[in-house]
């Protein structure tokens, strides 16, 4: 893996976006453009995943599902403990931040896919299921942690069942999850001939569209990053340490429990290391209005996302390679 192979266009466009933000350029993509590309990318990743799944053994998908649920439930608890014990972060902010780290970032996942494609590494069909599954459970855990925090704080805990129900329904009717699952189902259902007709749109031009998405994300990350002073040194360090903790879990699970190839391990690691900025923030805003959104948004968009895109992915890949070469258990 030479340096030039690290120069994946998608990542360079991310850097370009951050640079534009840094030099205070007036570059700005229309907000609707962003929404459109996200819709397109989610459908593309779903279709591709669905097609791959259709050709693979569905029984073997079960371990991936379990792993996804374990990450979604376990990682927020780890995060909460670290934030409370080491950082003395107040309980409700800790709960809101933690929830983000149990969920995933489709943008990071797609960048990893682009990275692997760029260096010609293949991967299993199952991580995409994990991507779809991991969006929601963390939100539930976030709710539980927030409820626990309120009890700790001694405040009256209005057992807001309505809110709880509302959020659970939200978590499953959420637009991006629906698109992902829906297009996975469609990708799995259609015939090869039919799939070939839509492949040019959803696969051939996918990597290029991803570049534009990441350029926009770079600007967004840059904007958020500039607020990191208001967030403090501890939280910024947490925003880098937490994905590393997730990554260790991901590497372990991907290699020893799931037994995937290097590409597959990399993707599982990226999922465990990444942190949501789509489904979780609005849910936490609603469920934990006492928490400061600028904390979790700065961490998720301004620190963890760029860290994963620029530093994380190649490192996770290198680690997966090392692990695979060293502890090949079969």
């Amino acid at each position: 893996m030479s340096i030039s192979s690290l120069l994946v266009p998608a990542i360079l466009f991310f850097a370009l976006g951050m640079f534009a933000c840094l030099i205070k350029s007036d570059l700005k993509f229309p907000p609707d453009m962003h929404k459109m590309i996200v819709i397109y990318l989610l459908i593309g990743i779903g279709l591709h995943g669905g097609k791959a799944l259709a050709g693979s053994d569905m029984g073997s998908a079960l371990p991936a599902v379990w792993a996804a649920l374990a990450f979604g439930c376990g990682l927020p608890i780890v995060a909460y403990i670290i934030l409370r014990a080491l950082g003395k972060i107040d309980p409700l902010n800790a709960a809101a931040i933690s929830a983000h780290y149990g969920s995933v970032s489709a943008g990071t996942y797609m960048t990893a896919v682009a990275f692997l494609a760029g260096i010609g590494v293949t991967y299993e069909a199952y991580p995409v299921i994990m991507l779809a599954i991991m969006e929601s459970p963390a939100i539930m855990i976030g709710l539980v942690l927030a409820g626990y925090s309120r009890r700790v704080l001694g405040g009256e805990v209005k057992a807001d069942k309505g809110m709880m129900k509302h959020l659970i329904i939200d978590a499953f009717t959420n637009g991006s999850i629906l698109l992902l699952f829906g297009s996975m189902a469609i990708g799995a259902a259609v015939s090869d001939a039919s799939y070939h007709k839509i492949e040019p749109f959803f696969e051939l031009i996918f990597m290029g569209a991803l570049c534009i998405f990441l350029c926009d994300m770079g600007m967004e990350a840059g904007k958020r990053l500039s607020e990191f002073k208001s967030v403090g040194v501890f939280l910024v360090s947490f925003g880098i340490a937490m994905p590393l903790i997730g990554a260790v879990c991901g590497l372990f699970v991907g290699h020893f429990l799931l037994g995937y190839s290097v590409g597959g391990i990399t993707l599982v690691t990226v999922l465990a290391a990444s942190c949501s900025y789509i489904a979780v923030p609005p849910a936490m805003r609603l469920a934990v209005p006492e928490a400061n959104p600028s904390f979790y948004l700065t961490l998720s968009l301004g620190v963890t996302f760029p860290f994963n895109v620029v530093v994380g992915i190649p490192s996770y890949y290198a680690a997966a390679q090392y692990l695979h070469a060293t502890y090949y258990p079969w």
Partner: protein
Amino acid sequence: MVIPTDILIPMKRIEIVINEDSIDELLEMLHATDVRGYTVIKKAGGLGSTGMRDPDDYALKENNMIIVLACKEDQAKNVIMTIHPRLKDFGGMCLISDCQWTIGPAESY
């Protein structure tokens, strides 16, 4: 007033700002009070007791809507009394002021 008063009708102007999510319920309440005209502005942002809302924000996607409605005083009372009990949950704000309707367009109030 120098504008001939026979082309002006004294009225109330009600201006409501509310989270986009609650708009359907609010409009239903307005329809129930036989309001026959209002104007809606979408994608507004703002600051309030629940923090900032910015329709262009990438992650939070929270929008305000503004409803402006002109009506006669008794109907304004009607509207206010109807929505008043729900305002606590809606949040946002509801302002009333005096205005004058220029006679001419269909009487959609």
